[in-house]
């Protein structure tokens, strides 16, 4: 556990190896091996660290490792006038929250690396190594984000994953749409990061430290800002702005659907399982702060449920398989923020974890489908793929049922926990969340139906040789080929086929995860221990409160974790926020019923009678159009923010061109004119004077030299006149 700093470092080394040498020198096999090996080592180390953490008593499950100092101590004034010491170490902290996160990141990351070796196999050698360098670099930054023990180290990871997201979305940079999507993601994230970093500044200004634990401990005894919008509310709101950018919430969600331009494993790892959950993690990490700002919490909950509902409605009509999943991700992230907003931090992180499993699974399955369809992403041109790719079908079905909340799959437990806690908090939010759950089940099963059921609607293929259409032959026999020849060149495409084993094995592993991941959080009422909530709880409360006692903790963090529900003792504690067991079971049954209803409706609309869907779309053409155009959000942003920015930029450009350049040019002209004038003076006045003297002398000498005749008699005559004159003068004026 003392070497947890190695966990991020290992993928970092992998990235360095692949990025510095791999692009030039590594074969595809080596590049893939380096990347997967570094991930496997990080996963192993994470598991060891996690189990060591489990072995500790519940109160002591926190370990900080300071590697070295980074920013040396700088005296810096605080808000209250005292001078604090600003110093940042490279410090990593393992506690239950980051423990869960590193398992999710390294575990799913490892599987996706393995999957990528198959999925990206047709890339040229250098691009292949570049891909793995980026992917490893992403994991490096993501682990730094979740392990960092203070805001600044977290921010390094936060920005780093943003960078890698940009690089990987724009991986096919020859494609205009891909590079545009990368830029969009980067710029939208900048807006969020602006809020985040302002929040960090304010935290330092108020608390004089940026260490998570120190901030939480300092905030613990502070009074809850129930009455008004105070400093803590402002801090948390700024942090939440950062979270909306990274986690694609209203109003900054627009980049995530476009991010699907990246390779599918990237969508699975970054834009479904890990990076986009960083915002949720960050809110959870600062649970103590958020608990003291009920108004921010309310905003978080409302934004969360609004995002969930909006994205789900858009997801209903998407025809691109990856975009449908992207909106589903946005929607599920909305759920997580709803959980955070109603104070169910553990439930939010629990959903984060289960979502990481089933959404990564769904994305990888969609990648497998796209792979099988030779790049086709439009579900209208799929259909009937069940018989061609049974493994993908089965695993994707598991993922679909999990996200729809069918027990006993993982999504059921986490989503039900969120719904339950929301129900206790507010019936309206609960109603919207339940509606979203219904739509989730519907659009996911719609996706399944359009892809795997019904008749085949895709492009025809050459009824070719051997077992090309009749998988899963290859991959089984020739492991080295990894699905080499017959879907390699795609010079001729021999129809949809099952993916190679390097892709199906991660699918199966994730499917198992999607099935069992929920069992760590079986609620009390179903005779489970709700282990994950107890496990995570110390991360969400101030330490002083823990030391003082469990009940005070619950009080200090109003509603962070409701002990009444977990242990069944001290009834009436807190807000009286619990229901009798039959109420809870009733809610559970209701949400399951909704999930089933959604699936049944989708089955009826898209499998049994596909014409109903079209008819409905026609009947509600206005609504359908609005949904198909994603509520015109991109257009609205384009018309307001983007064009406003562009207009401002153009205005500034004009100012630059006219005023600044004009001043510069004017100065130039003035200089030229004055120098020209000075040249005139020089030429005509100074030189003129000199020449005039010369010329005058020359001219006068013309006259005077006549006098020098050389004739001695002339001189004598002059002398005579002179003498005569002088004598005359002498005589006259004597």
């Amino acid at each position, binding site marked *: 556990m003392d070497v947890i700093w190695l966990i991020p470092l290992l993928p970092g080394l992998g990235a360095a190896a692949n990025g510095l040498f791999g692009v030039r020198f590594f074969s595809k096999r080596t590049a893939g091996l380096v990347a997967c090996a570094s991930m496997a080592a990080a996963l192993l180390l994470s598991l060891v660290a996690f189990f060591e953490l489990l072995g500790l008593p519940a109160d002591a499950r926190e370990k900080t490792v300071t590697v070295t100092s980074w920013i040396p101590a700088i005296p810096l004034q605080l808000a209250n006038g005292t001078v604090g010491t600003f110093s940042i170490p490279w410090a990593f902290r393992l506690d239950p929250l980051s423990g869960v996160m590193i398992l999710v990141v390294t575990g799913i990351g490892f599987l996706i690396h393995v999957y990528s070796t198959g999925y990206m196999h047709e890339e040229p050698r250098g691009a292949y190594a570049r891909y793995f360098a980026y992917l490893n670099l992403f994991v490096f930054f993501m682990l730094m984000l979740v392990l960092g023990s203070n805001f600044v180290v977290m921010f390094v990871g936060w920005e780093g994953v943003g960078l890698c997201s940009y690089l990987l979305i724009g991986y096919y940079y020859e494609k205009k749409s891909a590079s545009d999507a990368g830029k969009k993601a980067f710029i939208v994230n900048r807006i969020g990061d602006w809020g985040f970093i302002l929040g960090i500044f304010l935290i330092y200004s108020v608390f004089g430290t940026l260490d998570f634990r120190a901030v939480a401990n300092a905030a613990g005894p502070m009074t809850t800002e129930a009455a008004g919008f105070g400093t803590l509310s402002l801090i948390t709101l700024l942090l939440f702005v950062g979270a909306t950018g990274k986690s694609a919430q209203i109003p900054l969600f627009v980049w995530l659907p476009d991010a699907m331009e990246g390779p599918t494993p990237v969508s699975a790892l970054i834009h479904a399982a890990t990076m986009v959950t960083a915002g949720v993690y960050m809110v959870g990490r600062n649970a103590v702060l958020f608990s003291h700002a009920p108004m921010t919490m309310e905003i978080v909950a409302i934004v969360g449920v609004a995002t969930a509902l909006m994205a789900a409605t858009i997801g209903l009509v998407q025809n691109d398989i990856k975009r449908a999943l992207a909106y589903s991700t946005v929607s599920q992230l909305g759920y997580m923020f709803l959980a955070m907003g109603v104070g169910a931090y553990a439930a939010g992180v629990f959903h984060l974890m289960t979502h990481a499993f089933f959404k990564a699974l769904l994305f990888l399955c969609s990648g497998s489908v796209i792979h099988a369809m030779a790049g086709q992403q439009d579900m209208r041109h799929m259909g009937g793929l069940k018989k061609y790719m049974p493994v993908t079908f089965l695993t994707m079905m598991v993922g679909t049922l999990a996200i729809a909340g069918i027990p006993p799959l993982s999504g059921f437990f986490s989503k039900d926990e969120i719904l339950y806690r929301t129900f206790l908090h507010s019936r309206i939010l609960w109603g919207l969340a339940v509606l979203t759950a219904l739509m989730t089940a519907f659009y996911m099963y719609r996706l399944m139906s359009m892809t795997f059921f019904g008749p085949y609607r895709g492009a025809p293929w050459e009824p070719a040789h051997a077992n090309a259409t009749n998988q899963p032959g290859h991959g089984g026999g020739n492991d080295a080929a990894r699905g080499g020849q017959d879907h390699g060149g795609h010079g001729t495409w021999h129809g949809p086929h099952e993916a190679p084993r390097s892709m199906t094995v991660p699918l199966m592993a994730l499917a198992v995860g999607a099935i069992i991941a929920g069992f760590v959080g079986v609620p009390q009422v179903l005779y489970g221990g709700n282990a994950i909530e107890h496990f995570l709880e110390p991360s969400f409360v101030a330490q002083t409160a823990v030391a003082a006692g469990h009940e005070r903790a619950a009080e200090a963090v109003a509603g962070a974790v409701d002990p009444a529900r977990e242990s069944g003792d001290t009834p009436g504690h807190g807000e009286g926020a619990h229901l009798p067991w039959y109420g809870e079971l009733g809610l559970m049954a209701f949400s399951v019923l909704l999930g089933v209803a959604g699936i049944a409706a989708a089955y009826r609309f898209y499998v049994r009678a596909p014409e109903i869907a079209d008819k409905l779309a026609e009947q509600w053409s206005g609504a359908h159009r609005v949904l198909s155009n994603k509520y015109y959000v991109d257009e609205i942003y384009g018309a307001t923010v983007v064009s406003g920015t562009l207009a401002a930029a153009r205005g500034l450009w004009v100012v630059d061109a006219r005023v600044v350049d004009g001043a510069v040019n004017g100065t130039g002209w003035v200089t030229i004119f004055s120098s020209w004038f000075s040249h005139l003076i020089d030429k005509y006045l100074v030189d003129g004077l000199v020449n005039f003297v010369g010329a005058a002398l020359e001219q006068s000498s013309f006259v005077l030299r006549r006098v*020098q*005749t050389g004739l001695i*008699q002339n001189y004598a005559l002059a002398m005579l006149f002179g003498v005569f004159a002088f004598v005359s003068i002498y005589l006259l004026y004597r």
Partner: protein
Amino acid sequence: MITQTHYLALSAALFFLGVIGVLTRRNIIIILMSMELMLNAVNINLIAFSHQWQNIVGQVFAVFVICVAAAEAAVGLGIILAFYRNKETVNIDEMSLMRW
């Protein structure tokens, strides 16, 4: 009775004759001779004043002038000879080498 004024008048007349000769004649030998006239006019002046003031210095000075005039005539004639060998003439108008 011949007075001081007669001497001086003679001297002045003789001097101006010399001056006119120097200024108007072209032959350099005649100019040289005219200069002798002027020198002798000066001598008459010196002797006249020596006689008037009964001072012998004037006569001594006149003897010096005669000596210098002799030397001057010798040098002058030498120059003229050299010039004549160069230019085949003794015309003063030809002797205008020292001009601009």
